[in-house]
């Protein structure tokens, strides 16, 4: 029991040192910038199908003083078409009873995030690693479904996937690595939670998108 207490105390001490270090780092590395990046994104909150996007990410850190570590981010995920399938049935005795269909699903996502940036590491080449935390994000998401090349007059799709518009609050975090001569190049891994629950009773409804994205881009530093 005593050993456990000592261990806990040590962990707390290390944590508190880290917290002090982190807050110091926020202030020490504050600098205004605008960054633009793009790459590839996948949805980790899947329900049977894999959805991919090409994310366009714009980050803006307006302040450069120690009191303004805030960060704003806009993310738009351009949907890559995901293929699905379905069955359609016909009453017309002149036609086959059942046909198999190909389905195109476009899942797009747009998010506005507010958060702050924490400096984690700087190496000998002056490359830096940051942790971006976004405790508040507002996300709008949509699924567009199209069943292709079938006779809509004579066939009905059984249990079709349905278009869906949803949105809500989310949280996000990212690891950002700045590199290059002036630290003007950046690579980022970003994860966003699913949005707060939105009611949908349809059994095949798509879940809220939770994108995991890898992007590369450019930092535009500026002085205010």
């Amino acid at each position, binding site marked *: 029991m005593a050993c456990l207490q000592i261990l806990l105390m040590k962990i707390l001490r290390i944590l508190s040192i880290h917290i002090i270090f982190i807050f110091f780092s926020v202030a020490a590395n504050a600098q205004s910038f605008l960054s633009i990046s793009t790459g590839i994104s996948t949805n980790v909150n899947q329900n049977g199908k894999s959805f991919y996007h090409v994310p366009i990410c714009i980050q803006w850190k307006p302040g450069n003083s120690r009191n303004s570590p805030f960060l704003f981010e806009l993310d738009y995920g351009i949907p890559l078409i995901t293929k699905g399938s379905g069955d359609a*049935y*016909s*009453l*017309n*005795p002149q036609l086959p*009873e059942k046909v198999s269909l190909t389905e195109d699903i476009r899942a797009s996502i747009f998010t506005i995030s507010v958060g702050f940036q924490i400096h984690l590491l700087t190496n000998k080449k002056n490359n830096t690693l940051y942790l971006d935390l976004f405790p508040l994000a507002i996300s709008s998401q949509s699924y567009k479904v199209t069943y292709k090349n079938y006779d*809509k007059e004579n066939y*009905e*799709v*059984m*249990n*079709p996937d*349905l*278009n869906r518009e949803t949105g809500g609050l989310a949280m996000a975090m990212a690891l950002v690595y700045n590199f290059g001569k002036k630290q003007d190049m950046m690579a980022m891994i970003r994860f966003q939670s699913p949005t707060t629950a939105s009611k949908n*009773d*349809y*059994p095949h409804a798509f879940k809220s998108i939770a994108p995991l994205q890898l992007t590369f881009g450019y930092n535009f530093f500026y002085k205010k």
Partner: protein
Amino acid sequence: MKSISSITAVCMIILLLSSCGKRNFYADADDPGLSILSSYGFNIASVYINKVPYVNPYKKGIIGGIVNYAPTLRKTQTNSLLDTLSLTWPISKNDNSTGYNSSYQNISLLIPVPKSFSLNDFIALSGKRFPANANAIAVNSFFNPPNPGTSNLYFINISLDTTALSFSGLFDGKIGDSIVISKGRFDFKIDKNTINF
């Protein structure tokens, strides 16, 4: 302590009763006014009668929630060689008007079946598309008795569990020269104890 438990139990029951039951109408983007074709046991059926969308109505529960009117599935004895299996459900215009404003109040699919027709025979109809005009269809209003015409019918899925019979499918038909029934689809789940065969 006992009274707290009782109050909690009553609250739970009220919550359960008020949350149960949904309309389960999911609009078909290609056929305005109709619900999609489904096989989830939604107890929803929709159809065009002379291009006007009709759907089975719903009632509100005593405390809350929505219950769609379910169909009746019955075998009727006749004096001929075959009996009649009838699947009947109430309908109303799907335009937010009340049922009393609708031209028709019920729709029936009428299938000739052998005298020995049983529940297992019905389940065996799963996946069966009947030949053209092999069955009858009827619609009736308060003032006009049903006058059957011919119908096409396709039972896409039929399944039975311990308590309920679920079936979904497509139908259309024609009654005389004046009533055209098109794009019909149903997704029903009924208590198997209500079936009389």
